């Protein structure tokens, strides 16, 4: 009898703990729901277009990064990504009449974005995806919705006195193999010694160990690393390229592309874009939302 009582008490305690947990999760979900864009339930589209198909299906698959603080970072508690790219994706989905909960998020990394779009694994890619001419031959781009730039991260206090890419000559510079910033250093600043890993977190480790003098890539990625470095790193803050981030979609779907461009321009106008920035990337950098870029209808 006594044992039974004890078990009952334990069970009750566990039940209380579980309820407490789930109500917390509920609160978070509610908060998230309040923040996301209002779903356009009356959205209507011409039959046969991609917009109509997605609206009909009531769901959309969007590829984003899962390892990019401020833009697309997987929240292990909710198992959904969070960030500026994710908010842009939600904004488009909302205009299609799709709830944020009905978006299926797929992780895309730099090397598989084109093939995921071409193979139809995803409807859209919003993943710090730089628009360039080579990529335009394989996929179509809406946007840009943000203009990033390549920058340099150095150890705290900048012991090597690196102020710009010209100062990288003879220095060990870390980046990721197969990335556009690495290619830029290789062709335009050949005197810099490139150290190439497969992920940026290894570059941060190498910088911390003093194995490299600097890390270079888009400023948004570096921002995330500076944040994670807890005071060990600092950003030079002198962007030397223009990296327009676009939304990737299937090649030749011009109607869909034009429609997304319209949605983006609306969001630039009515402040939803700046609002998304303030809640995500802006919250990390502490910087105000920049001027929105102008959409490139090529």
């Amino acid at each position, binding site marked *: 009898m006594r044992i039974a009582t004890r078990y009952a008490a334990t069970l009750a305690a566990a039940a209380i703990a579980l309820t407490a947990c789930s109500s917390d999760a509920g609160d978070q979900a509610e908060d998230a729901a309040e923040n996301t864009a209002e779903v356009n339930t009356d959205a209507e589209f011409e039959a046969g277009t991609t917009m109509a198909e997605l609206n009909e299906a009531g769901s959309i698959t969007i590829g984003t990064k899962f390892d990019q603080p401020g833009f697309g970072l997987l929240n292990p508690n909710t198992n959904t990504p969070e960030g500026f790219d994710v908010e842009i994706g939600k904004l488009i989905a909302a205009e299609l009449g799709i709830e944020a909960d009905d978006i299926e998020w797929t992780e895309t990394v730099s090397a598989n974005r084109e093939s995921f779009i071409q193979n139809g694994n995803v409807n859209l890619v919003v993943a710090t995806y730089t628009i360039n001419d080579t990529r335009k031959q394989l996929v179509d781009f809406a946007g840009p919705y943000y203009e990033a730039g390549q920058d340099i991260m150095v150890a705290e206090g900048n012991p090597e006195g690196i102020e710009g890419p010209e100062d990288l000559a003879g220095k060990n510079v870390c980046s990721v*193999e197969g990335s556009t910033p690495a290619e830029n250093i290789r062709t335009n600043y050949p005197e810099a010694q490139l150290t190439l*890993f*497969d992920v940026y977190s290894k570059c941060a480790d190498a910088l911390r160990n003093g194995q490299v003098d600097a890390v270079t890539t888009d400023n948004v990625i570096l921002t995330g690393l500076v944040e994670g470095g807890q005071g060990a790193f600092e950003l030079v803050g002198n962007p030397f390229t223009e990296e327009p981030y676009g939304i990737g979609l299937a090649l030749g779907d011009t109607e869909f592309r034009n429609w997304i461009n319209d949605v983006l321009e609306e969001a630039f106008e009515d402040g939803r874009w700046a609002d998304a920035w303030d809640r995500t990337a802006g919250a990390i950098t502490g910087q105000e939302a920049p001027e929105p870029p102008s959409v490139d209808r090529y």
Partner: protein
Amino acid sequence: MQFFVDNFDLLKDAFLQTLSLSLLAGLLALVLGTLLAAMRVSPIAPLRWLATFYVETFRNTPLTVVFFFMIFGLPQIDFVIDFFTGAVLSVGLYTAAFVCEALRSGINAVAAGQVEAARAVGLTFGQTLREIVLPQAFRTVVPPLGNVWIAMVKNTSIAAGFSVTELSAVLPRLVNADAGDLTLVLVGVVAGYLIITLPSAFAVHRLERRVAILR
């Protein structure tokens, strides 16, 4: 074809990097593996324990973790080695454990009477091992050592993630530059590995037939 012409230098350098990484790590693994095998059958207990500890540590650790330790762990205790040396050490030390175990199976396959006869005529342990046991053991383990070598050549691809521009590292670079040629990039990289592994397999087969002993 134009693709291969355009990127020939890059592919060639990457191939040479994979080849030199394989050869250096393979040499290290062979020498260290033989030493470890000798330790594992030695009459001195602490040597046996040490070798067993080494083998079980490296054989049961993922190679990526060994790499992480070499490249990012050692600098934490102020021991900085360059990335290529780190890659050679990682692959070599890891593979030595497998060489040791393959060789030990060969040593165990040598008939006990051989060792007894050698000791009876007054050879020391070292002499018995060098003159009698190892020559027979190596002949027996040519096929498994060939396996270990081929697996090791492919394992060098992990160095791509640790700042060594070998064949696999070329994959993301070329794909990023030109995602349209994905298939050609893959063909080029795979061909690079095959140039090393196929002749190896052939050579192992030839060697196996030449040194085979009849029992």
